[in-house]
């Protein structure tokens, strides 16, 4: 299945999402409230069968905070990129995908630690690398005068 077909079947599975045929992968921008249903549909449908969560990346897009999911189907070896964004920078919340892929556990904790995005329904959302006194270093507005040497 090539990317065009994948985009078509993904669009059929999860309507209401913006689908872009990227250079490498099919990229799908999902509204935060549709995330779990879209991911469930993508995982369970026989055509797509995205059974492996490769990576979760948190990105600070400036105004919004975003999370990028890379999913892969181990059967047909294709990948899809799910993107979701929240505009609330103070208290960003996105639904957790831990129940679909246990791999999301650590990845979501990492995103929470470094960008401060809370994942609703995560079983054990604690900071992963840093202790509680730190800010969220991967946000673009993060300032650390002591540890970051500006050249």
């Amino acid at each position, binding site marked *: 299945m090539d990317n065009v077909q994948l985009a078509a079947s993904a669009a059929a599975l999860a309507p209401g999402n913006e689908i872009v045929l990227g250079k490498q992968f099919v990229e799908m921008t999902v509204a935060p409230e549709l995330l779990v249903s879209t991911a469930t549909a993508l995982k369970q449908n026989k055509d797509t069968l995205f059974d492996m969560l*490769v*990576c979760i990346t948190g*990105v600070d897009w400036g105004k919004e905070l975003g999370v*990028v999911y890379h999913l892969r189907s181990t059967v047909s*070896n294709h990948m899809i990129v799910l993107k979701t964004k929240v505009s609330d920078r103070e208290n960003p919340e996105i639904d957790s995908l831990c129940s679909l892929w246990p*791999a999301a556990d650590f*990845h979501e904790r990492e995103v929470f630690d*470094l960008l401060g995005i809370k994942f609703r329904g995560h079983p054990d959302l604690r900071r992963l690398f840093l202790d509680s006194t730190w800010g969220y*270093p991967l946000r673009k507005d993060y300032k650390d005068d002591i540890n970051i040497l500006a050249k």
Partner: protein
Amino acid sequence: MEEAVNNIPLEEEEYIINMGPQHPSTHGVLRLVVSLKGEMVQNVEPHIGYIHRGIEKMCESLTYPQIIHLTDRMDYLSAHINNEAVSLAVEKALDIEVSDRVKYIRTILSELTRIQSHQLFWATFGMDLGGLTCFFYGLRDRELVMDIFEETCGGRMIVSYNCPGGLMNDIHPNFQKRTKDFIKYFRKTLPEYDRLLTGNVIFQERLKGIGIINREDAIAWGLTGPVGRASGFSCDIRKHNPYSAYNKVTFKEILYNEGDSFHRYQVRMDEMRESMDIIEQLIDNIPEGPYAEKMKPVIKLPEGEYWQSVETARGELGVFIVSDGNKNPYRMKFRSPCFANLAPLNILAKGFKIADLVAINGSLDLVIPDIDR
């Protein structure tokens, strides 16, 4: 960190021990908070971040050629493959096709990296299980690979040999001879490894049936590399999404279905043989050509998102670059294999003994700087 220990709910007769961050068998600064009942492991909770250097944050203020040297320091045992991942991602974004010579050399060096990483795994795994002699044999033979790297790349572990567009410099004239000598030597020495450890009845009893994870769970947890392949999850990026010269060589993807610690070990032992096969197919046929493409002095990626995954010695390393068209990446993310492989440690080790926890932890072959980044 103290609250982490106090918050664990304990049943009757349970107690907690802290393995790490300074412990001989956690291979670095991994901290495992283990609740035990007698010797039986009830719960393992990994605490990481002791060597978190913020590489992803640092990347945001560096140019692409400068990022290469940071990736050396993530999974320092697959340094060359990490470099390759970033280089490939940048080349993919710029639509640059490197010469076959570069591809061949990268592939050979990647496989050498894999061999030395697995040698070190063998060495330390033997040591984890109490066979100290393995450690010295493994490191002795690894030294030969290190010499190959040192002669060609200038560094032993931290090679920094790749750059976007090719290699830092051409291979050393001695490279081919040295590599062939090593393969010849190591083909003789590898059976010795098997005699000393693999066939040993104590070793097998210690590992067989310990820390089992089945294929479905392995996929769901995103386990890749030898850990995933021991469970029967065919996840070799070299096979499924070939990069560099992997589509020009024939090799076998090692798969086992048992998914226990012994087969995680066995996958690596077999992979060393496969790697030697790959090197032998390439080493005499390195084509002529430039060792690096001409690049602009300042590399700017076009706006967009780029993903490149490679197969390091531990599994799938994904490089995700979000570029806003500047010379620095807007966001750089490394999907490191050890990070995913560490996550299911609790379900792997639950119900086994503390000695098994050490064996399971060893068989996952974690490199802590790769987890923390």
